[in-house]
């Protein structure tokens, strides 16, 4: 439900959603296969297989220039997420305007992948 909502909202605001996954491991595989790489990755924390922080670490190992925006209802994940290299953190439920503005700030181009 959450992923569908994001996809719809992102489309409405003019972003292209180039991929999504429901678990951390799949997200890493998809990220590796995407060419070109997405401009922004939206990452939840409580994910099956690998959590958001672990997934962020792996993705940044593959591509240190990847831009990860963390979105989670688990506020305790904020600090580990930022330490892992995420560039932003939004607590769920977030304000739509803030969400859109943050993505715009992070990504120069209008392509992104959603995860979570």
């Amino acid at each position, binding site marked *: *439900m*959450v992923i*569908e*909502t*994001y996809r719809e*909202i992102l489309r*409405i605001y003019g972003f292209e959603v180039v991929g999504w996954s429901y678990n951390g491991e799949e997200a890493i595989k998809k990220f590796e296969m995407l060419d070109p790489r997405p401009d922004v990755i939206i990452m939840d924390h*409580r994910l099956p297989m690998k959590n958001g922080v672990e997934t962020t670490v792996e993705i940044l190992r593959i591509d240190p220039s990847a831009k990860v925006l963390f979105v989670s*209802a*688990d*506020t305790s994940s904020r600090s580990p997420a930022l330490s892992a290299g995420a560039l932003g953190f939004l*607590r*769920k*439920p*977030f*304000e*739509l*305007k803030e*969400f859109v503005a943050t993505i715009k700030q992070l990504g120069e181009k209008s392509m992104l992948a959603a995860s979570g």
Partner: protein
Amino acid sequence: MSAVSTATANGTAIRSRTAVLRILLVEDNPGDARLVKEMLAEVDKQLVFRVEQVDTLAAGIERTRGEKIDAVLVDLGLPDSKGLETFYRLHAAVPNLPVIVLTMLNDEDAAIEAVRGGAQDYLIKSRLDGELLTRVILYSIERKRSEGALRNRTFEAECAQVRSETYFDYLAHDIANLLSPILAYAELISDDSEAPSSTRARAARIVEQTRRASSFILSLRALEEAERTPFDEFDFVDLKDMFPLVEGRVREEHPEKQISVNYEMPVDGALKVAGGVHVHSLLDGILENAVNYSDSEKVTVSIRVVPVEEAGDKFFWQIEIADDGPGMVDELKAFFVPSGASSERLRKGISRGVASSLLIYSALVGRFGGSGWVEDRVPGDYAKGTKVVVKLPRGV
């Protein structure tokens, strides 16, 4: 010891049918061993002691691994172990068995030390008699059993605590997650210029309520976190930093109101109080209530901070936040008492529909080692507004 009954609160042992107690006697002196056996042989008809004797500590420990033993009587001076070490080695091998130390008159100190280390009791050999010996054995068994039951209950309570923390975490996390699409869609509709204005207004209501639900979850989370934090781990924060943040947040939340806030506090120096980030939640909640529950568009809030000293060595900053809102009836005021954040008061408060924020603040203030109460802004006339007073421990 299944057939033996329990010792009652007034100290009488009730024995309804014949009970057999297996006693392991670790004693190398044949004379002392015979004496103990004789004393235990003729106690009473409903209680039978079956005494097994061994000469060494090694044999004693070996025997405890065999058929069930109810209690151990041990002499500290044995061929293979002397003094306190005898007790410690035995206790380490059988931590769940009641151990009673037998000692000589001139070695009472070691016996007392053994009791501190976990022995149930000690007996001086030269002062033994059957009645004393029986009573000490029975009570030692009973005490050990209660200790075990208490340990089990504590363990169960800790497990239940961890489970309810987990349930709470799931509840808070998953509801916040579920609110996410609700808020997003409601915002979409309320911002949609093509939608009818009545639809947009209704969507704006959903946005507002969803935000409230979300901040309510945050407050509860903060409180739950505070509950798990040991008191001395709360950081000190400066009230002078907190007030502008809180005032800014509340103004932003209520653009429809004309809010004026007056401050009266010591000009020089910081106003440090215990409570870390939770102080922000606390002040935010109080100011939010003052503004939100006011019927009028103009809200005036007066904030005053004064130093308070208690019992000569306890120092607090007393924060008074007074509003000119609709006031609070006495019955509600009574719930804002931190010492009253007992489970009984909480349950009563919940069942009476007391605003959750009131209960949350009072519990928070109590956790920081502070206190607080609610009074009328104008004494005796509750309809003229509310004054919330919070006293928080002063930091350096």
